């Protein structure tokens, strides 16, 4: 199992329920995330993964239940969180570097520090060459990297990622997953990573939550206690993959 048992709790989800009219999407969801943990959430399409992240970042209100961050009601104005959306969300009128800087600007990071982080992060994700292009001048995968960089640059202590690499080709995906792990270790942030790609989840996460179909609750949790860098052909890796695949056969 991961680390020492008494890790501090970062996020606590208590009896979370969400209805859209008569449609019950999340049904009494309970779990918690430790400080600095890398948690992956896998679930079938339409089960409410995006809805959950939207609740967590207060973009929409919950029907019942609570989400606590550091013991208080989740709120982007007080908690330092960042969100990488499933859809590209860069601002079309800002250049790549302005987009990456935008999050820091809103969070009030001082100019010198902004400049420093901006340069280092553009280098890391390989966007330095197109820093002055606008979003409609770059490819979809680059745009997604912009969104990731914008989130990372704010030094969030809670990073929410909603199938961030779903649109990207496999090679770039591996590359960005490694970048993500690097940043995670450097920043010590808590990461909640939503995906429907099982291998991706096992590759990056310390723990995986498997969700049921709608109405959704937590079906199982699986600890991934493998050394890094992980390998897809490693026996233990394949073992865990079989375990998860068994859990989701009924999707």
């Amino acid at each position: 199992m991961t680390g020492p048992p008494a890790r501090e709790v970062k996020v606590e989800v208590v009896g979370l329920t969400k209805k859209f009219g008569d449609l019950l999407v999340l049904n009494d969801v309970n779990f918690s995330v430790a400080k600095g943990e890398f948690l992956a959430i896998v679930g079938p399409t339409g089960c409410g993964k995006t809805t959950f992240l939207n609740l967590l970042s207060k973009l929409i209100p919950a029907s019942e239940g609570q989400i606590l961050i550091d013991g208080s009601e989740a709120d982007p104005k007080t908690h330092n969180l960042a969100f990488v959306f499933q859809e590209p969300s860069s601002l079309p009128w800002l250049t790549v570097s302005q987009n990456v800087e935008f999050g820091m600007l809103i969070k009030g990071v001082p100019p010198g520090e902004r400049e420093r982080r901006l340069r280092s992060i553009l280098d890391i994700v390989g966007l330095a060459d197109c820093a002055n292009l606008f979003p409609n001048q770059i490819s979809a995968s680059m745009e997604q990297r912009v969104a990731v960089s914008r989130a990372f640059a704010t030094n969030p202590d809670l990073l929410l990622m909603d199938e961030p690499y779903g649109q990207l080709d496999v090679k770039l995906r591996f590359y960005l997953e490694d970048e993500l792990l690097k940043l995670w270790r450097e920043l010590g942030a808590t990461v909640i990573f939503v995906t429907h790609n099982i291998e991706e989840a096992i590759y990056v996460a310390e723990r995986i939550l498997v969700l049921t179909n709608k109405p959704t609750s937590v079906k199982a949790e699986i600890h991934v206690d493998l050394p890094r860098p992980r390998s897809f052909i490693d026996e233990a890796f394949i073992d865990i993959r079989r375990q998860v695949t068994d859990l989701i056969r009924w999707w």
Partner: protein
Amino acid sequence: MNAALEHPTTVQGLQRHKSPAAILRRLLKNRYVLYLVSISGLLLIWHFSAVNFATSKYMPTPWMVLKELWRIAHENLAGKDLLGHLWSSLHRVLIGFAIGSAVGVPLGLFMALNRYINNLVKPVFDLIKPMPPISWISLAILWFGIGEESKVFIIAIGAFVPALINSYNGIRLVDPALYDAIRMLGANRWQTMMEVTFPAGFPALFAGLQISLSVAWSCVLAAELVSARSGMGFLIILGMTMSNPSMILSGMVVIAVTAYLITVVLSKVEKWVCPWKVELPQ
């Protein structure tokens, strides 16, 4: 090896060059060739119908119109030459457009941002919107006289409507995902408005101003046709009272060219104020 492979294609290319069908095909691929064909076709048809038909008394040839253009450009017509009249019209347009958009844009923004203002203004606006601006002319003359004010009033009404509609829609139709993106960063209302709402709505707002300006240009002509002592509309009426169709057509040509130039200038301005709308070849 490479050269040997390339050689035959070059020769073939040269041969294709020589055949008349190939030359034609090449010419047709160049759109400017067709533009030229189109314009000269119009001029030819115009010329022959002007020469051959019974109405030719009132249908001057293109050449006559060109000569007339030269004449009115240098001659005093009721106190002004051609450029003087053009400036009279443009001057009215600029004032009316400035007033119309100075009222329309902020009102549209406030309506989009505040539902009480929206509900208060919308019913009245919906009544005004479908009225052709020129239908105000008689009232405008009674209220303001036949001087500048009545014309400026018509133009301002004409410019006001698209300015309001487009700034309203520009704000209302901002992609909600952009709001999500800034809200999860913890932005307050003011930041959201300044960093997302306005920049995102700006292109639509600007498009509205472009429409306003072209509406203003047709309004000034309509107003001048009804009553004026200067301006392009007045020149056309002058041509009619003097039974000089060349003068009427010259006026129409100048009006069209001016409208075209306004569009060109505005699309240049748009590239300058919204550089992010311009796509680079990948």
